[in-house]
């Protein structure tokens, strides 16, 4: 390779390396801001300031969904299997919302420690199953819950 070409290639690679490092440091510094949501454990550890508008991500704890008969109000508990956060929401839930499902709720903590959600989104995991496989797994006693972090229920 001719010297002036080698020099040019060197400059390009130097710029590439420099920019990568700069972006890497920025992303690291902004880590918490880039996260879409806090986990219930982070909330329990007080990482979120009082009165702050934020998002919680977790699983809908099995057996905790309580819907009102005369309104769209619903209460449930979000969990990461270490800490729990009670959530209250009024509105239409996504179709995928169910017990054991991952969700992201947006809102604020009230004085009683209940998360008042203004929005609830369903989070889909990376697993795809045909109904037949799901039925077979259920029949074998190994439901989809086994693919979630240990300590379920």
């Amino acid at each position, binding site marked *: 390779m001719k010297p002036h*070409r080698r020099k040019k290639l060197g400059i390009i690679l130097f710029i*590439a390396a420099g*920019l990568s490092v700069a972006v890497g440091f920025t992303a690291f510094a902004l880590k918490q801001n880039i996260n879409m949501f*806090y986990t219930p454990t982070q909330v329990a550890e007080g990482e979120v300031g009082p009165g702050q508008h934020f998002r919680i991500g977790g699983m809908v704890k099995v057996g905790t969904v309580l819907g009102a008969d005369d309104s769209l109000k619903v209460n449930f508990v979000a969990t990461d299997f270490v800490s729990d956060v009670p959530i209250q929401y009024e509105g239409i839930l996504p179709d995928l919302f169910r017990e054991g499902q991952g969700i992201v709720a947006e809102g604020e903590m009230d004085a009683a420690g209940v998360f008042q959600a203004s929005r609830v*989104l*369903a989070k889909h995991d*990376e697993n*795809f199953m*045909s109904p037949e496989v799901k039925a077979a797994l259920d029949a074998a006693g190994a439901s989809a819950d086994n693919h979630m972090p240990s300590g379920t229920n």
Partner: protein
Amino acid sequence: MWVWFFKLGSPKWFYELSGKWLPWLVAAMVIFMTIGLVWGLLFLPPDYQQGFTSRILIVHVAVAGTSLAFFPLMFVAGTITLVWRMKLADMVAKNAAILGAWFSFITLATGSLWGSVMWGTWWEWTDSRLVSMLFQLFLLLGVISLRSALEDSDAAAKACALLSIVGCINVVIIKYSVEWWNTLHQVSSPVTTDTSSPNGPEFWIATLIMIVAVYLFLTVSLILSTRNEILERERKAQWVKDLVLKAK
């Protein structure tokens, strides 16, 4: 190897060689695309939670994965343009940007469709996977407009090579965003050959065929647009004149 490398840089040589490859590539693309689309959109088993909505992901995953190839390609092409002054590499980089913008757009559109049904939202500004993909689209639009503003000059090649470096870093961010940060977007599905567990072959074989089809589509489109570009830029060259006369 170097002889081959410099030969490829000759527009005339590339034009002739790619003309021989094209029929095979197009045939392979049609076969894979037909199998992938018919299988993926008509015969793929429904997901137990998502129903038939999961079929959108056959297209989404294939196009999204392929869209990450553009910036690395443009970076390599841009480096070759700047270091070895190869005109052909510049033409490839120029056309790759336009194709890449379309791929990114289709990724965002199909993802939004799926998200609107499954997540309950079309778009989330706080999701790093979604936003970094949108950033890729804007970067590519930036490269395209830079090119049209600077008209195939040296400055255009330099500026676009620089943007390609940023684009490559962003590709890494897109890829790992779902692992480094909490996102609404799910992580990549692991594949398994076990037919009785999640993500079995009944889902991923169709996806794999679709990925091959989309890569072939990218290759064919890039070759076709580069051939057009060669004819336009070399229109005063003798071999192009001969080619046109022969066609008449």
